[in-house]
């Protein structure tokens, strides 16, 4: 996954770039830049632009009415609920996992790290499927759930579970390398000075990892709000009830209601852009504090 390390201060500085011996002739430079920009335009900028163009194709009025539509609003609400539950749970998990893995040595650690990564490697469709196998009508707990009039699949709990699964590793993956790099000197110093476990966590560890933590939360949140495949399997697509924003987009699109579909999509695209801005800000702060540590 991408990490904070991408913004680390480049050793390759501008002074060297001007050096003739280790740079390319101008025509090579501009050809390469042009090729990269063409690639990014085809695959990145145009789709982004298309979302907003298509959304506004039928005018602002259509656009706004598509967004204040009751189904759209309830889809937004459900999306926020799912993220609001999944993000804090995975946050707590991420801190606990990183604490155990970064501060202690134990057998099977690398297996644990690999297992935490598992959800990255699992197709979202399969992530949905496994919960159907457990909580679906024919699943392990299906009979019991229906006897007690409880619903997980084709209901909100299933959507939340699928969302937790697909966003499972994000916080842990950010924190583990960060906390490993920071070592345990400061925690030991706090311990010698008499601090309790929770005092160490709150006063020493968390302030040190706050940027990595925030970064992980931003990534988790973006994925939680945007997840489609896994949620699609467990949702049942009940309008106004079990539709998240991405599912709402799909339904409108399949009904050939393109303007409304793209209007809803544009909200998600805006969220994605906000995510990128926040991410850049956090990376900037994290790089700044990393530089401060390097001088340490």
């Amino acid at each position, binding site marked *: 996954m991408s990490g904070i390390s991408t913004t680390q201060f480049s050793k390759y500085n501008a002074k060297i770039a001007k050096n003739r011996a280790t740079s390319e002739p101008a025509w090579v430079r501009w050809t390469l830049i042009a090729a990269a920009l063409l690639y990014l335009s085809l695959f990145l900028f145009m789709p982004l632009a298309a979302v907003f163009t298509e959304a506004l194709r039928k005018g602002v009025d259509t656009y706004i009415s598509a967004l204040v539509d009751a189904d759209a609003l309830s889809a937004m609400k459900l999306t926020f609920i799912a993220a609001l539950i999944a993000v804090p749970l995975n946050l707590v998990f991420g801190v606990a996992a990183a604490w155990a893995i970064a501060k202690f040595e134990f057998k099977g650690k690398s297996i644990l790290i690999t297992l935490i990564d598992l959800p990255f490697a699992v197709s979202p469709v399969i992530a949905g499927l496994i919960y159907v196998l457990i909580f679906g009508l024919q699943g392990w707990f299906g009979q019991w759930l229906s006897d007690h009039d409880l619903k997980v699949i084709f209901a909100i709990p299933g959507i939340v579970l699928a969302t937790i699964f697909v966003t499972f590793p994000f916080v842990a993956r950010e924190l583990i390398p960060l906390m490993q790099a920071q070592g345990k*000197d*400061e925690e*030991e110093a706090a311990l*010698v*000075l008499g*601090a309790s476990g929770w*005092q160490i966590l709150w006063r020493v560890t968390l*302030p040190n990892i706050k940027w990595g933590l925030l970064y992980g939360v931003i990534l988790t949140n973006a994925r939680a709000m945007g997840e489609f495949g896994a949620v699609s399997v467990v949702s049942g697509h009940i309008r106004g009830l079990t539709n998240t924003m991405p599912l709402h987009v799909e339904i409108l699109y399949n009904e050939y209601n393109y303007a409304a579909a793209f209007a809803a999509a544009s909200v998600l695209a805006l969220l994605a852009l906000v995510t990128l801005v926040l991410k850049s800000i956090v990376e900037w702060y994290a790089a700044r*504090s990393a530089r401060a540590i390097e001088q*340490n």
Partner: protein
Amino acid sequence: MSIEIRNVKKNFGDFSALNDVTLDVPSGELVALLGPSGCGKTTLLRIIAGLEAPDAGSIHFHGKDTTERDVRERQVGFVFQHYALFRHMTVFENVAFGLRVRPKETRPSDAEIKRRVHELLELVQLDWLADRYPPQLSGGQRQRIALARALAVEPKVLLLDEPFGALDAKVRKELRRWLRRLHDELHITSVFVTHDQEEALEVADRIVVMNKGKVEQIGTPQEVYDNPATPYVYNFLGNVNQFKSNVLKGEASIGGLNIKLEKENQQADGAALAYIRPHDIDVQRVKSGSAPAFEAKVNYIHAIGPLVRLELQQLGQDAIIEAELTQERFRELGLNTGEQVFIYPRNVRVFADNTASA
């Protein structure tokens, strides 16, 4: 408070970091654990602090067994090698930390904390840095803040892990004198770890020389320097010339010479290693008297500084012998490279050569 360490063992996997270490640190002394990296000195310090648990053996503070006691209850001050200052806290908050995390009933009031922290910052002469953050400080300043932080909890024992290791040469010299003065003021039982013999010799009341998880010698700087207990200590403290030798009836043969051994330095007959400090070698232009002497050629002369170092080659041998003369003596002799001289060893120390018999 005195520290007694009894038969402490510690392994990391197959690696034996500490192998049956027994050691007393008298109350109020400043003791150096001296040895090369990997000799177990830092592990021992961390075991005293309670940051590691020994596999066997026990630690006593003033006669009381503290082996099982939690690090938080040991009342030790620990200065980490890289200081481990809390980088998101100001200098003031760093020093105040140990007081602030106390349970409510024993926590001093804010005013009291403020008073104590400023007192400590004055002690380390850095009161003016209270509002800075650790990354804004120089290495020497961080070192002193780390010390102030450790002292804030009024520890009974102060432990310092390579306290000057990360500093440049000039700051290091200043700081170690300062630490010595501070210790003379506070008289808190202190143990510091170092790999720098000069540092240990200058600062400590007592030096513990360690090697491969064992204590080689314990003594005052004078004792360990003048009377090394083992070849290892000889090699580790100061420059030394080493010769393969053979002991027979109280005489050691070195490079064809038979040298009578002092009473306090007798060895059993057999293969041995002989050691002579460079400043215990006298150089003469002509052979005089009956004392045994080598004939040697002057290979190089390094005449910078108060001492002149000569690199001598014994005639008919490959061995290079190093000698140190005062500038005065050197001028008196008026030596040039390539000349032939006679050298007279004094204070020859001999140890049984275990490698040869093995």
